[in-house]
Structure formats: structure tokens, C-alpha cells
């Protein structure tokens, strides 16, 4: 693959090697030899207050394995965004710990924070693209931050744009694109660095149903390449469409309302039953 040869003779190696000496290592998605222990994400009794009497999240305990696709659901204002923000440390926990790749990230200092975020691709409801930059520039910035050489950036951004279906639109000004396309730009930016974890905070919330479905499918494709995806949404049509694990947040409690492993074991046992029946 082009990617593998890039890896061998490019800044990637350098970047990841350098990463190990930095306060927070750089982990890449889809590597066969995982340098980090499983699970990728652990919440240990995480509590977050916004009002003193009424915690937004209380005692949340949760494990996410590498390569999982997890829906985070719950009504508006339930704390889905807060949950995700605690992972990329836009908010601080009031109690408990969050382990990312085995490392406690609730005590990161200001200087290490960027290194954490380089491991996480984030997609928002309001896209958060820079309208007067071109599509290419909006995606490339994620790699410029990593300090990769221009040549690598060009080829990687090209690949990412192709993956999200924006091939050939790199030179366009981002504000000239439709909403769905702008969200694709944001997704390309999130995946271009091949982060180990993708967080999506209601990425389809601003899009009409058909576009929402397209975007959702895109996340599934990304998931299939090995990325772990946390997908926050209150759109039940999406949740019902697939059998992925579902975490529901309500009144501060996080409940596992559908377990991936259970579904999978069910699926597996059905296969066994079919096999027996076939005999």
C-alpha cells in the first residue's frame, strides 16, 4: 500500500518515534502491533458537576476496547457533549479517572494536552471548519500541527479527501461547500492523522436525514479501517440501523442499554445454530 511505503521513508516514523519521548505518546490507528494496552478508554467513577446540587455525570464507569463503535445517546442536555469533552480534556473531571491508552489523562498539564489531542480526531455538529481556508488547508492543518513535511501532507490529505468523497475539491474555498460537504471536510481533518480514537459529537445533527445517513456510513467505513469511534447522537433511526453498543446518559447516569459483545455473541451462537441445522 502507498501508506505503508510512506510510513517507511517519511516523517511518520520520525513523528511517532519522537512521540514516545514526548509527554504523551503518539498512537496510530490500524497498527498491527499495538504499543498500548487494551482497553483504549476507561472511565473510573467519573463525576462532573456544573451545578453543585446536580451532577451532569455521576460515577460513570465504562470501558471501550480498541476498534469498537459506540453510540452515546440521551436527550438534549443530558451530558453527551460533556462526556466527550472530558475525553479530549476541554473540561476537567471533578472526581474519578479517565485512562486513555492506559494513561491517566485527568492530570495532564497544559503542555501535554496538545499531545493527547493529536491522538483524537473530533467531529462536531457545527463542523468547526475555517470558512475562508480552502478544503485542502482545513484538512492539512491537522498534519501541519504534527510537523510533517509538505510532500507527505499533500499525499495524505489527497487520500483523506478521497476517503470522504471530496476528491478534486481541495482547492475550493470551504465556505462555498454545502453543509454535508463541510462536515466531510471536518471528518477528513479528523481522520487524516489516523488517530486511534474518533469522537463525533452529533455530527449529523445539522443535516437532513439522507445526508445524515451518508455521514454515518462514512463513520462506519472509518471504523472498519481500525479506528475506535464514539458517536454521540440522539437520532434513534441511526442507532436502530446497526447493532453497535449503545451507552445512554440520563440524569447523570451512564447506562449500557445495548452491549456490543452480547449482540456479537448472539450473532455467533446463531451462526453455530445455523451450522448445526445445516448438518
Amino acid at each position: 500500500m502507498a501508506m505503508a511505503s510512506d510510513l517507511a521513508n517519511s516523517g511518520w516514523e520520525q513523528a511517532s518515534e519522537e512521540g514516545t519521548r514526548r509527554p504523551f505518546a503518539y498512537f496510530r490507528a490500524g497498527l498491527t502491533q499495538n504499543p498500548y494496552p487494551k482497553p483504549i478508554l476507561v472511565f473510573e467513577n467519573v463525576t462532573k458537576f456544573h451545578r453543585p446540587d446536580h451532577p451532569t455525570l455521576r460515577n460513570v464507569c465504562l470501558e471501550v476496547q480498541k476498534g469498537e463503535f459506540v453510540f452515546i445517546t440521551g436527550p438534549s442536555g443530558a451530558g453527551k457533549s460533556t462526556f466527550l469533552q472530558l475525553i479530549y480534556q476541554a473540561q476537567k473531571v471533578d472526581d474519578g479517572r479517565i485512562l486513555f491508552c492506559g494513561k491517566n489523562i485527568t492530570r495532564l498539564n497544559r503542555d501535554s494536552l496538545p499531545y493527547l489531542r493529536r491522538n483524537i480526531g473530533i467531529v462536531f455538529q457545527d463542523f468547526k471548519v475555517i470558512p475562508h481556508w480552502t478544503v485542502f488547508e482545513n484538512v492539512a492543518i491537522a498534519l501541519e500541527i504534527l510537523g510533517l513535511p509538505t510532500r507527505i501532507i499533500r499525499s495524505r490529505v489527497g487520500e483523506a479527501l478521497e476517503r470522504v468523497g471530496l476528491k478534486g475539491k481541495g482547492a475550493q474555498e470551504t465556505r462555498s461547500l454545502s453543509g454535508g460537504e463541510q462536515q466531510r471536510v471536518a471528518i477528513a481533518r479528523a481522520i487524516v492523522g489516523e488517530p486511534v480514537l474518533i469522537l463525533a459529537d452529533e455530527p449529523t445533527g445539522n443535516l437532513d436525514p439522507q445526508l445524515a445517513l451518508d455521514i454515518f456510513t462514512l463513520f462506519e467505513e472509518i471504523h472498519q479501517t481500525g479506528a475506535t469511534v464514539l458517536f454521540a447522537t440522539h437520532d434513534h433511526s441511526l442507532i436502530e440501523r446497526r447493532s453497535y453498543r449503545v451507552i445512554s446518559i440520563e440524569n447523570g447516569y451512564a447506562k449500557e442499554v445495548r452491549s456490543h459483545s452480547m449482540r456479537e455473541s448472539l450473532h455467533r451462537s446463531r451462526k453455530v445454530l445455523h451450522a448445526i441445522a445445516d448438518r
Partner: protein
Amino acid sequence: MQMHSILRRVFRRLGAEARLQGVALLTLTGALIAMLIVVVFVLNMQLTTKSILRRANVAVFLKDGVSQEEITQLQTSIESVSGVRHVKYLSSAQVREAFFSNEASKDGLEGLPPEAFSPLIEIEIEEDGRSFTVQQLAEKLKRFEIVEAVESHESWQSEVRAIASIINRLAIAALGLALVGIAFFISNVMKLTLSSRKDEIEILRLCGASDGFIQAPFLIEGASYGFLASWISVTITWFLKNLADREFDRVFDFIGVRLVFLDPWMIAAFIVIVTAICTVASAFSLRRYLHV
């Protein structure tokens, strides 16, 4: 560091905020031109007063018929006084010649013989570091037999000196104020820039950009304001100075002054100082207002 990307972002910003940047650059250049005009004025005033004060000094008029020996004796004893830079004897003929070399004083006086002029000794005194006042020196000289009169310009010299030093101090205070004003102005321009770039900064943060990566383009922008504006203002002031020189050359000839401009190292210092102030002011703004 990721210099490519940082410079790319500086240039991307150029188009997007042309108006704010244009206004900032123009205002800054205007302020710097005003400052430079003051600097050039003070510089020329200083040089002029210095040359006036040097020219004045002390003239010792000698009696007629004094022997060369006595003159030499007086000359050596004056020379031995510390603080005296130069002593020069002018005979009657030489004084007459010097008098007529000045065009303005020619009319009708050509007939005057050398005897009409007393021979004199011109004493040039160090401006600084002398252990006596000109008054004291004059008193001492008058006691010599061969001395007819002593002429010093002490009183008006000290007046010139006082006025010059007041203007000097005023100018320095004004320049200091102007520099503070420039720092304040640039830090406010940066504040505006930061607030209009809030979304962009937030996005960079979320993508894992370090503080340095986020701040560098703003610092470069601030420094560029200083650098460009100081260059432009130096150039414009230089043209203005030449224009003034050409327009008013007869006035300047009359006063006996040639306008001078800053020498290269002064220009360099000016550019460095202004650039540094703009950079520091931007850095201050970044520390203060860059919270996302």
C-alpha cells in the same frame, strides 16, 4: 518548528484581514513619521547649537605693539590650563582677512587698514569636563598686561544651552510617550485580531496545536507591523528631509546649517526598537487575551 505552516498562516491572514491590517499599518506609519520628524529636528538642533557654542568660545584682544615673545608666553600659559582645547593667535592682518572673508560685512569698509583691527588670541574650550567657568578664565586673562579686553559669550551661551536641553528633554518625553502609545495601539490591534480569529484558534487547539504553534503567526504579524512601518516611515521622512533641504536651502544657508538625517546605525536602532516594541506588545496581548 513548523515554519512552513506558520508562514502559510501569516499569509492566509493577509487577505482575510486586509482592512484591519491596512489601517493598523497606516496609523503606525503616521505615528512613526511624526516621531522621526521630532528626532530629526532635535538632532539638527543639537548639532547647530553645538557648532554655535564651539564657534563662540573666548576671544582675547591684545594691546597694540605687543612683542611676539609676550604673545608666545601668554599663549603657552593659556595652553597649560586644563580644559583648553586649542589656542590660536591671529595677527591684525589675519583678523582683517577673516573679517572680509565674510561677505555680509564687506560693504564700504574695504579701506580699513590692518591697524584698525586688534590682534587677538582665540581660545577654544572643551564643552565638558573643565574645572573653571568661562567667567573665571576671563577674569584671570584680564590681569595680563598685554590684554586689552576679553570677550566671552558666556551668558547667551548658557541660555542657548538651557533652551536646547529643555527642548531635548521635551522631545525625549514625547518620544517615550509615543512609544508607549505605539505599544498600546499594537496590543489593541492584536486584541481585535485575536477576537476575530477566535474560532480559528479554538479549532487549532482542538486539533492539538501547541501554544507556540498558535501564537507564532500573531507574533510574526506584530513584528511585521513594526518592521514595515519603521522602514516606510524612515523612507518617507528621508524624502521629507530632502524636500525641506531643497525648499529652504537659502534659509539654511543663511543660518549656516546643513540638514542632517539619521546615520545608518541610528536608522537600524530605530527599526530594531520599534520592531521589538511591537513584538513585545503582541506577546503581551497574546498572554492576556489568548484563552480559548
